C-alpha cells in the first residue's frame, strides 16, 4: 500500500499535532492531597454582605471571610469564642463583650473595634438609617435595643427582653458577622462582591455564575487553615456534578442520595451520609372542606406509610422523622408516636366523619424526591378511598402556594424547611401569626403560640425543653402534620479531603477543612 502526502494533508496533520500538544492531552484527576481544592455549590453566590445574604451558599462564605464574637466548634453546634476575648451575660437582657485586640480587616481597613460590632449588629436589627435598605434578617436581631460601645474593644448588647437563642442563632451565626464599618461605607453597592473581614479566608475572586475563590488570609490572628485556596464553583446540574467529581475537576459536593449512590464505586472518592436538620412533612389545610374534620386528617395520617414514601423519595437513605424537631435539635420529643399504616382504621375514621369519595389535591415542588413520594402517597390513599391529584409546581409558583388567600385553596402539600440548631427558629413558622405566610396548614392554636413565646425567653434549659416538647405534642394532636424525614446530606469528596460542618451540614466550616493522609 502506498501512502502519498500532499501539501494539504501535511498542513492539516501539522495543525492537529500542534493543537494536541497545545492542550496538553488528557486532563487527569489529581491523585494525592493538595491545598487548593474546588467545591461545588448548587446556587450562585449573590451577596456576601451578611445583612443581605441570600441563603446558605452566601452564608458559608461569610462564615470564613468574617469573624463573629463566637462561632461553632469544629463539627459541632457548640459555641466557642472567636473575635471576642470574653463574653458575659450581664443580665437577661444585657450581654457584655471584649474583643481580642489586633484583629485586622483585609485591604487595609484597619483594626476591628467595638464600633464595628455596633455597626454590624444595628444595621441588621434596628430600623435602617440614611437610605440604607432593611435587612431580610432583621428578625434575627429581633428585640435588639442597641449596642453600647464602652471602650475601643468593649461593648454591651442590650435587648428589650431575654432571648434564649441569642447566642446560637444570632451572635454565633451569620447575622453576628462583624463587618468593617469603613469598608461598607466606602464601597457602597460594591461591598456585596468585595467583602472585607478579619476571618481566616479572604475573597480573591468572584464572578457571576462561575463562583468565587477564597484564599488563606495571611493577617488572620487564629490558627491558619489547612487549605491555601478554595475555589467555589456554581454547578446547578447534579449530573454535571457527578461527572466533574469523576473527572477530578471538583473535590467536594453534596448530592441527593440517588445521584450519589453510583459514586461509591469510584476509586479515590468517599461518600458519607450525614443527617440533616431540614425537615420534610405532608401538611393538611385544616380550614379546607372535609380536612377541617380531625377524623379525616387522622385517617389520612393512618392511610400513609412514611417508610414506603421515604424508600421512593430518598432511596431509603433518609431517616424517618416523627415530630417537628429532628433528634439533633434541643427539645426533640423522643417519645413521639411512630404511626403505622392501618387501612381498616383509616376507613373507619372516614366513615365516622361521614366522608366518602374524597378528592384532594397534593401540591408539591417539581423535584424527583417529592414527585416519587407524592406518587406513593396517591397509591396508598387510593386504598382508603381518597383520590389524590398531584400538582407539581416549579419553585417560584410553589413557594407562593400558601400565600394570603391563595393558601385557602390548598388541600395537602409536601413541604421542606431548613432548620437551625434552635427549637424556636424551627417552631416559628407554625404560630397563628404565620397563617397565610408560612403556616400553610392554617392551624391556629393559642396554647402553641403561648408555649412558643414562653420558650423564646426562657433561659432555663430544662423548663424550655419541656415547653418545646409540649408544643410538639399539640402539633401531633392536630393531625395536620405527617412528619416524613429530616433528610440526609450525602457528602461526596476526595478521600484525602476532610470536610467539616456544623451537624446538619447546612453550615460548612471551610476554615476547618483538612487534608488526610
Amino acid at each position, binding site marked *: 500500500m502506498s501512502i502519498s502526502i500532499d501539501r494539504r494533508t501535511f498542513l492539516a496533520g501539522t495543525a492537529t499535532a500542534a493543537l494536541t500538544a*497545545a*492542550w496538553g*492531552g*488528557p*486532563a*487527569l484527576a489529581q491523585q494525592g492531597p493538595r491545598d487548593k481544592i*474546588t467545591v461545588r455549590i448548587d446556587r*450562585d453566590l*449573590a*451577596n456576601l454582605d451578611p445583612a*443581605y445574604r*441570600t*441563603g446558605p451558599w452566601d452564608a458559608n462564605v461569610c462564615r470564613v471571610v468574617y469573624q463573629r464574637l463566637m462561632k461553632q466548634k469544629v463539627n459541632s453546634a457548640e459555641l466557642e469564642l472567636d473575635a471576642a476575648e470574653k463574653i458575659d451575660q450581664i443580665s437577661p437582657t444585657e450581654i457584655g463583650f471584649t474583643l481580642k485586640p489586633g484583629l485586622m480587616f483585609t485591604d487595609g481597613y484597619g483594626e476591628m473595634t467595638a464600633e464595628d460590632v455596633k455597626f454590624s449588629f444595628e444595621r441588621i436589627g434596628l430600623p435602617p438609617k440614611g437610605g440604607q*435598605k*432593611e*435587612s*431580610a*434578617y*432583621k*428578625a*434575627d436581631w429581633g428585640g435588639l435595643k442597641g449596642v453600647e460601645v464602652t471602650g475601643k474593644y468593649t461593648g454591651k448588647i442590650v435587648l428589650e427582653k431575654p432571648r434564649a437563642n441569642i447566642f446560637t442563632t444570632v451572635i454565633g451565626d451569620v447575622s453576628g458577622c462583624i463587618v468593617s464599618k469603613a469598608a461598607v461605607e466606602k464601597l457602597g*453597592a460594591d461591598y*456585596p*462582591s468585595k467583602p472585607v473581614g478579619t476571618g481566616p479566608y479572604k475573597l480573591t475572586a468572584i*464572578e*457571576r*455564575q*462561575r463562583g468565587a*475563590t477564597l484564599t488563606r488570609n495571611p493577617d488572620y490572628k487564629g490558627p491558619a487553615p489547612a487549605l491555601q485556596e478554595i*475555589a467555589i*464553583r*456554581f*454547578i*446547578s*446540574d447534579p*449530573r*454535571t456534578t457527578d*461527572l*466533574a467529581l*469523576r*473527572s477530578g*475537576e*471538583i473535590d467536594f459536593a453534596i448530592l441527593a442520595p440517588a445521584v450519589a449512590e453510583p459514586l461509591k464505586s469510584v476509586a479515590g472518592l468517599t461518600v458519607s451520609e450525614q443527617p440533616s436538620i431540614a425537615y420534610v412533612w405532608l401538611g393538611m389545610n385544616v380550614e379546607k372542606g372535609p380536612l377541617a374534620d380531625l377524623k379525616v386528617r387522622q385517617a389520612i395520617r393512618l392511610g400513609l406509610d412514611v417508610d414506603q414514601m421515604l424508600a421512593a423519595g430518598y432511596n431509603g437513605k433518609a431517616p424517618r422523622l416523627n415530630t417537628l424537631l429532628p433528634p439533633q435539635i434541643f427539645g426533640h420529643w423522643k417519645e413521639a408516636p411512630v404511626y403505622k399504616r392501618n387501612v381498616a382504621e383509616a376507613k373507619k375514621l372516614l366513615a365516622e366523619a361521614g366522608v366518602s369519595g374524597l378528592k384532594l389535591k397534593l401540591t408539591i415542588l417539581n423535584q424527583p424526591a417529592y414527585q416519587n413520594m407524592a406518587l406513593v402517597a396517591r397509591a396508598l390513599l387510593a386504598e382508603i378511598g381518597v383520590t389524590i391529584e398531584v400538582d407539581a409546581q*416549579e*419553585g*417560584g*409558583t410553589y*413557594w*407562593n402556594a400558601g*400565600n394570603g388567600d391563595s393558601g385557602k385553596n390548598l388541600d395537602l402539600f409536601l413541604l421542606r*424547611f431548613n432548620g437551625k440548631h434552635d427549637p424556636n427558629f424551627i417552631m416559628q*413558622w407554625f404560630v397563628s401569626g404565620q397563617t397565610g*405566610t*408560612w403556616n400553610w396548614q392554617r392551624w391556629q392554636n393559642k396554647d402553641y403560640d403561648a408555649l412558643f413565646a414562653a420558650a423564646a425567653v426562657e433561659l432555663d434549659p430544662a423548663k424550655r425543653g419541656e415547653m418545646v416538647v409540649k408544643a410538639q405534642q399539640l402539633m401531633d394532636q392536630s393531625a395536620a402534620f405527617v412528619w416524613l424525614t429530616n433528610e440526609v446530606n450525602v457528602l461526596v469528596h476526595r478521600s484525602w479531603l476532610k470536610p467539616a460542618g456544623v451537624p446538619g451540614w447546612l453550615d460548612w466550616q471551610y476554615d476547618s477543612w483538612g487534608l488526610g493522609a
Partner: protein
Amino acid sequence: MPRLIKDERLAYVTSRLLTTVLIVFGAMVLLFALTALVPGDPAKTLLGPQASPELAKRFITEMGLDQPLHIRLWRFFGAVLTGNLGVDVISGKPVVQLVASVLPYTVILTFSAIGLSVLIGVPLGIHAATHRGSASDTILAFISVAFIAVPSFVIAIFLLLIFAIWLDWLPVLGTSRSGEFLDEARRMILPTLALAAGWIGFIARLVRSSMLEVLGEPYIRTARAYGLPERMITYKYALKNACIPTIAILGLGIGRLLGGAVLVEIVFARPGLGRLVYEAVSERNFPVVQGAVLVVVVLFVVVNLIVDLSYSAIDPRIRRSPGQGAGA
C-alpha cells in the same frame, strides 16, 4: 402609492431598520405582559421566609411592581433609552453590569457554534449533493436527521461521557479556574460541538437541496458544455447561489442557538445569558429577566438585520418591490 425614498437600497435599509425598532418595541411590551402573568410573589421567592411584611412591601415598591403595568412599561422605556436596564435587587448591581459580565460567554459560544456548523455543514452538504444517491449521501442524510432530532442537551451529555469520562481527553466544566486562554479554548470544544450538532445537520441538508436545485440550472449545464472543471463549477458557480438560503437561515440560527445555549450552559456549568434568564425567571427577579431578555432580543434582531442586509447585497432582487422584479 408614491414612493418617498427613490433609492431602492436606502428604502430597503430604512424599512428594515423600522421593522427592527418595531420588533424590539413589541418584545418589550410582551415582556411586561409576561412578567405580569407569571404567578408567584417575587418578594417571597427572593427574600425567603425571614422577610418581614414591611420589607416585602418595600421590596415590591423598589422593583416598581406596585405600579400599574402601563406606568412600569413607560418607566422601563424611559430607562432603556438612557441605557439603564434597572438594578438587580439581590446583588444591588446594575442589570447592565450583570448582563455585560455573562454576555461574552454566550456570544462566543453561539458564534463558535454557528461557525462550526457552517464549516462542517456546508462541505457535507456539497459532498452529499455531488454524490447524490451514493452510500455516503445516505449515511450523511441519516446522521444529519439524527443530529437535528436529538436535543442539544442530550448530545451534550453523550459528549461528556465519551470525551470527558471514557476517553478523558477533555474537561467536564465549560470554564476554567485559571482563565488561561488555552484552557478556556479547550473547555469550549464540547459545548460548541453540543450546540452546533443540530445545526450541522440542518445546514448540510439545506446546502444539499439548494445545491441540487442550482446544479440543475441551465447556466450550470452551459458551463459543463464549455468543459469547465467540475470543481470550478461546483465551488465557483453553483455554491454562491446555493448559499443564499443558508445565509438567510443563519439569522434564525442565531436565535435558535441562543435558546439552545441555556441547556448547554447548564450542562457544562458555563456562565451565560440564557442561564442568567433561566435563574432570574425561577427567582422572579423581574429586572434581570427584562434586562437580559431585552439584550437577547436586540442581539437577535440586529443579527437578522445584518443577515437581511447582506442577503440583499448578494441577491439584488430581494430589495426590489413587487412589480419591479427581474422581468419587470
